[in-house]
């Protein structure tokens, strides 16, 4: 007489949950990068004005633009499946940091920082929902 313990079902379920979570995290990072990118671009697409003119809406969002170069410099990059970045490419707009953080003469206009504040809750909620759904589906 013998008793057999077969945990293969449990191991298989664990593997399914792990794979589903990895996929959910990847999708959540995609959503986060896309949301931040869109919000930051929105912050950077204020009214156009010409070089030499006094810019309209000084110090306010959306930031007035001359060429729109800074908005075009915003990029997304995935470093790992669970790690992504949205950044202003300094090769395209080397003045991005001065616009974002301000200088002695210009107030900061935090086009990325404000985007994070606006979207943080939505991104975290989506992340939580994606993970819960993935676990529930994989565990069935």
């Amino acid at each position, binding site marked *: 007489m013998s008793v057999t313990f077969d945990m293969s079902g449990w191991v298989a379920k664990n593997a399914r949950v792990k794979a589903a979570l990895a996929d959910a995290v990847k999708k959540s990072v995609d959503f986060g990068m896309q949301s931040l990118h869109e919000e930051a671009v929105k912050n950077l697409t204020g009214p156009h004005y010409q070089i030499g003119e006094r810019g309209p809406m000084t110090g306010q969002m959306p930031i007035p633009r001359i060429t729109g170069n800074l908005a075009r410099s915003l990029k997304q990059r995935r470093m790992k499946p669970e790690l992504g970045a949205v950044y202003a490419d300094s090769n395209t707009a080397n003045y991005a940091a001065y616009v974002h953080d301000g200088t*002695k003469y210009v107030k900061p206009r935090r086009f990325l920082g404000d985007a994070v504040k606006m979207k943080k809750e939505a991104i975290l909620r989506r992340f939580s929902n994606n993970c819960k759904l993935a676990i529930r589906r994989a565990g069935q």
Partner: protein
Amino acid sequence: MSVRAGYEIEDIQRVVHAVIAAKVSTASPWTSWTAILGWPESDVLNNLAKPVIYVEPPTMIARTVQQGAMSSGVWEMIVGCWDDRKTGGTQEINIIGSQLLNFFRDKKTSHDTTKITITLGSTTYTSKDLIDMGVNVISIVGPREIATTDLKEFRTEFILTIRN
């Protein structure tokens, strides 16, 4: 709860500024710095003899709800340190940052023993602490080093997370 409903942005900023101002007016090494409410314009920086700590307005990032209690807001605010050619080196900005971190991490000092007198609306509150004023700093993160156009200008920023 002394921060007025409907005036939170203004009141939270002023309360946090008042606490930092209380420190810079009494405690060494804080007396070597100046506390400024809001963004320091260039003429302000030029006219001051000391490095500054500036306190920006808060932004609400979330609202927490508890069963049987009123909901509370979670706010983030930037507190920055700016040494504009006052000392000529990075040492001072690092000391300011370290003191700020230590001050807000030490709940007893920042939320209890540091007392402020402040007028919000038509009411003056005397010898109150952060908790009396309804401002609970739950975390401080930083410093984030900020790029400057002048080699002898040094800036860092911290983010305070506040529950009100």
